[in-house]
């Protein structure tokens, strides 16, 4: 197994005495709490974008040529872009696009990967070999590369980004789940279920699957950041979201020639990508330190 799960021994020193829910929350790596809080804030901003954005119409195709490229002020906290749209409003709406992509990709690739992985891990033998060889092939393509190739042949859009990234991401979950499920499958309660005559599909999905999920959940939250970065990169290359959608990578691309003269057009969407990816990574690191023990 060469899954790139960085083993983290940070939790090794965590004493095993924190059992009550409150103590558990406090005892969780403080990083996890900080990451979760930051992420909750971003999700809230995305959900409430139409109400908290100072100029909701600017999230779409509105134009105000007379107000183009105004620097940050009390009226426009993050300034305005080339066509006079409020950058703060677009950054808030951009959170919707990015989180939508992240949730969709993680749901699709997580779902496919876990199902294939749990089957491979439980069945073992040639079934596992075939599934693992298929994942080997997909893993040979770095995510952005296969997404590039797919995005070229499909029409650029948010859906394309979701499909392209999900296609490259599922094998990680398949491999991870397979290795966990293989060890769960040897446990006594699985044997007893088999002896009682429980049909295999039921054993797999009722008993093996729920007991194999923890590391996958940790990996999912660690991967949120990677998906956000890949999606932004695809949009930056012009292979993802397009006008008038608010998308951070696209905003950076549209404003890049203005960086020297109008720094705010590029700086704020870039910071939004950085902070969101950071929140996912901090949460994932914290969860891993806590849950993998």
């Amino acid at each position, binding site marked *: 197994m060469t899954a790139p799960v*960085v083993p983290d021994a940070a939790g090794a020193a965590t004493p095993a005495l924190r059992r009550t829910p409150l103590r558990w929350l406090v005892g969780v790596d403080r990083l996890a709490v900080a990451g979760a809080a930051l992420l909750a804030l971003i999700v809230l901003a995305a959900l409430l974008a139409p109400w908290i954005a100072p100029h909701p119409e600017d999230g779409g195709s509105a134009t105000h040529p007379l107000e183009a490229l105004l620097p940050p002020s009390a009226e426009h906290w993050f300034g305005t872009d080339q066509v006079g749209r409020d950058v703060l409003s677009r950054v808030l709406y951009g959170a919707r696009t990015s989180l939508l992509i992240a949730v969709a990709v993680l749901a699709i690739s997580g779902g496919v990967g876990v199902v294939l992985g749990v089957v491979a891990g439980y069945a073992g033998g040639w079934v596992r070999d075939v599934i693992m060889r298929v994942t080997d092939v997909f893993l040979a393509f770095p995510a952005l590369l296969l997404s590039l*190739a797919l995005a070229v042949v499909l029409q650029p859009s948010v859906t394309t980004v979701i499909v392209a990234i999900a296609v490259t991401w599922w094998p990680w979950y398949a491999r991870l789940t397979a290795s966990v499920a293989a060890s769960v499958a040897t446990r006594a309660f699985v044997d007893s279920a088999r002896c009682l005559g429980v049909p295999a599909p039921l054993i797999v999905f009722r008993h093996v699957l729920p007991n194999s999920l923890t590391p996958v959940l940790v990996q999912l939250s660690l991967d949120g950041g990677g998906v956000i970065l890949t999606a932004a990169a695809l949009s*930056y290359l012009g292979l993802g979201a397009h006008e008038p959608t608010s998308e951070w*990578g696209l905003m950076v691309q549209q404003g890049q020639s203005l960086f020297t003269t109008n720094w705010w057009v590029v700086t704020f969407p870039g910071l939004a990508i*950085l902070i969101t990816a950071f929140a996912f990574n901090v949460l994932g690191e914290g969860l891993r330190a806590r849950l993998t023990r």
Partner: protein
Amino acid sequence: MSRYLIRRLGQAALVVAGVVTLTFVIMRLVPGDPAVAYAGPRASPAELAAARQRFGLDDPLPVQLWNYVRDLVTGDWGVSLHTRRPVRDDLFLAFPASLELVAAALVIAVAAGIPLGVAAARHKGRLPDLSIRLSSMLAVSVPVFWMALALQTIFSSGLGWFPIAGEYDTGLDQTSPLRVYTNITAVDALFTGNWPILTSTLHHLVLPALVLAAYPTGVIAQMTRAALIEESARDHARMERALGFGETAVLTRFALRPALNPVLSLIALVFAYSIVNGFLVEAVFNWPGLGRYATDSIRTLDTPSIAGVTLLVAALYVLANLAVDLLQGVIDPRARAR
């Protein structure tokens, strides 16, 4: 060892076969007619038919796949639609430039990441550890294209410390022409004693290499830290402490070497990732590598070129993994059993 070698080589060959098939399938999903893309939108039906004939587009798919594989093996990687040159020749020119950039970035990442990981493990749970962990998480979260734009704006356009774009000052081609052997400019310049071009290349490398080094530095620091902490909890470390070695000596003299094993395989993963991440850096700094070639190809929907880039990078990834596995098999006999 030889049985392990054969099994591992067989696996790699199988993966490469899968990679070729998958690339072929993706490239056949193209919505437009490749014949139209080649012959141009105003081509007559006869010209279209000729183009179709030329690329064998009328054959059944399995036949096309077979021909594709045969061509690849014999070195015919197709003709690029936008440069009108053989894709293989284009790749021969573009890849060395990417390799130069990625190698520089990985040297920085290893030189910075491993000491940072050691320092974090040494001060585990205290302020230096927390700040190194947080900054390595920041480093893996930063969008490279944005960081590239920011550094370019600040240090090139603003302060004028570094050149804005390119691989070296092409004006130097007149005064001290470069004799080309490997196509890796820095290496050619070094071995032919072409100091003006060498210094110019290194000067141009600084910013893009730093940007590209951010992600690998972060993951290498995290991995080194985790592996060291695990290693320093083993019995041999207790023994060394009992013998009176200080904590720093236990980490650097005894725990570091076994801890570098997982770091080594991480570097192989990160290598392929960095080549693709480098595409974005190359786009910003106009670096004449695979990335610029790929982005040009995307703009012109140039499927043979994209397929070439995809195959090359995927094959590199398989090779890098194979190399690391074999190396680990040599270092650690237990790895062969897996």
